[in-house]
């Protein structure tokens, strides 16, 4: 299944953070071994790419699947530009 551009971007960050090679849209940040510290790094990289407040920690801790995170980022960036 192909990933959306935002999902691709998340997958790329996870590849760097976790040293994994494949990330699917249903994969979960915490199942990959993510913790409070990798969350801080991940959020920093998301903000670098998509702007401040693109993804809030609360959202990550609620549902950490790639697809859900990408959706949240898309919504935040859409509302930030309108």
């Amino acid at each position, binding site marked *: 299944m192909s990933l959306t551009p935002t999902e691709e971007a998340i997958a790329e960050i996870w590849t760097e*953070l*976790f*040293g*994994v*090679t*494949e990330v699917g849209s249903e994969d979960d940040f*915490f*199942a*990959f*071994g*993510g*913790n*409070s*510290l*990798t*969350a*801080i*790094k991940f*959020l*920093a*990289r998301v*903000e*670098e790419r998509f702007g*401040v*407040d693109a993804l*809030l*920690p*609360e959202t990550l*801790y609620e549902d950490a699947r790639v697809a859900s995170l990408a959706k949240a980022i898309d919504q935040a960036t859409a509302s930030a530009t309108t």
Partner: protein
Amino acid sequence: MQRLAYSDPALAIHRLINQTAVGYPRESGVPELFERCADLRPDAPAVVQGDRGLTYRQLDRLANGLARELLARGLTPGSTVGVSLPRSPELIVALLAILKCGGSYLPFDPAYSDERLRHLFGESGCRWVLSDRADLGARLDCEVVAPDAPPADRGPGVAVAADAIAYINFTSGSTGRPKGVPIRHRSIARLVHGATYARLDEGTRLLHLSPVTFDAATFEIWGALLRGGTCVLYPDGFVRLSRLGQVLREHGVTVLFLTTALFNAVIDEAPEILSGLRTILTGGEAHSVRHIAEALRTYGPGRLVSVYGPTEATTFATFHPVDELADDVVSLPIGRPIQNTRLYVVDGETLCAPGRSGEIWLAGDGLSPGYLGMPELTADRFVERVIDGVTERLYRTGDHGHLLPGGDVAFEGRKDDQVKINGFRIELGEISYHLNRHPAVRQSHVAVSTLGGRSLLAFVVTDDPACTAASVRDHLRARLPAYMVPARVHLCDALPLTATGKIDRHALLAAHEGGPSQARSR
């Protein structure tokens, strides 16, 4: 009384590094020290968070009111009071009010399991909780008081001795029981007065970022409020670096403490957010020289300080200002003892000369009186020895190291199974204890993976086909704090053994680091 043996060079170097005595108010409790600051500068900012803030007078009056309320409701001086409040001005009011009553605060996280919380409350004889969550009363069988009493001009008039217990922190225990570490008022005064590791005074704006359940918070809160400075509270439950940068900038924070792991993350992702600080303290785990070197290049000399200390000796025991770094350095020393603290490197019953490895023993007013309800462990870890003609009460840290010729201490690590993950102190045995009580688990081994950052890893031997990695993690999650639940659990048929019959840790880790399919299992 047992004497420690020593050679002349060993004695000389210990005498050199242990000249740390400076005068400080060792007979005053925290309330008295705070009230002195409040009397001197009542309108100075004591606590700020976002656009909320309390002056010293306001904080003092609110704490007076809450202290009186607690006593009116039947709290007796000397009682332990659990505290579960978000990082907020109310939290600081609550801590100060408990101390004004002559009580001890026990910060806890309500996300802990009932079993763990009942253990914490049982060990510390805690029947009172300050919280905005009324549901905790039934859950923990205790009296819950909301921190919203009206302010009062006068305190409750309880005399609080300097050697009374101010707070209790719990730390991981290898027998499956967390260890309660009580800390005296005097130990807090010793930490923040005459500080050699950072300037703490009326101009200090100190960030409170750590969870209040950890002893870094002792420094972050009282390092400001007993010195006339301002405690700047990080506003959110979760840390975000963009937000952290904003808070540091907007509130003009001068000093902060970051755990090693968080410090490394900041250096990797957003080093610019620390550029306005006067002092950056970092510690908790062995430092990464690459990150320290990067930080030194970014911030310049005179601002970066490495700190070390176990909870049992009140937050910080040693410090090492990082003002230069040789090109060939492979590890950063933990430095020398802070003010009013002494350190000995001991091998067997002998003080070590420079270069000889030994266990790090600490002495001074920072030492806890011992673990709650664990007299044997206390007698083992807290000992008395005659050193250089003086009887010292000592805490044997279990950390190993050696003295460098100039007197700095080089850290070597531990010989037991205590590890640090992202700043959290964890005894692997405590995790194994709970793993092995899972009905389907026949054998287990807990290790630390360094793949993609340090994380916990569990190997579980089971012959129950219904047992899944997820169910094992759920079992642990119900019993342990989240930071002690292994990120990955591997189910296996047997643990590989070495030729001598011990668990082959290298073979296990190699299997874990093998393929993505293995690494992906939960």
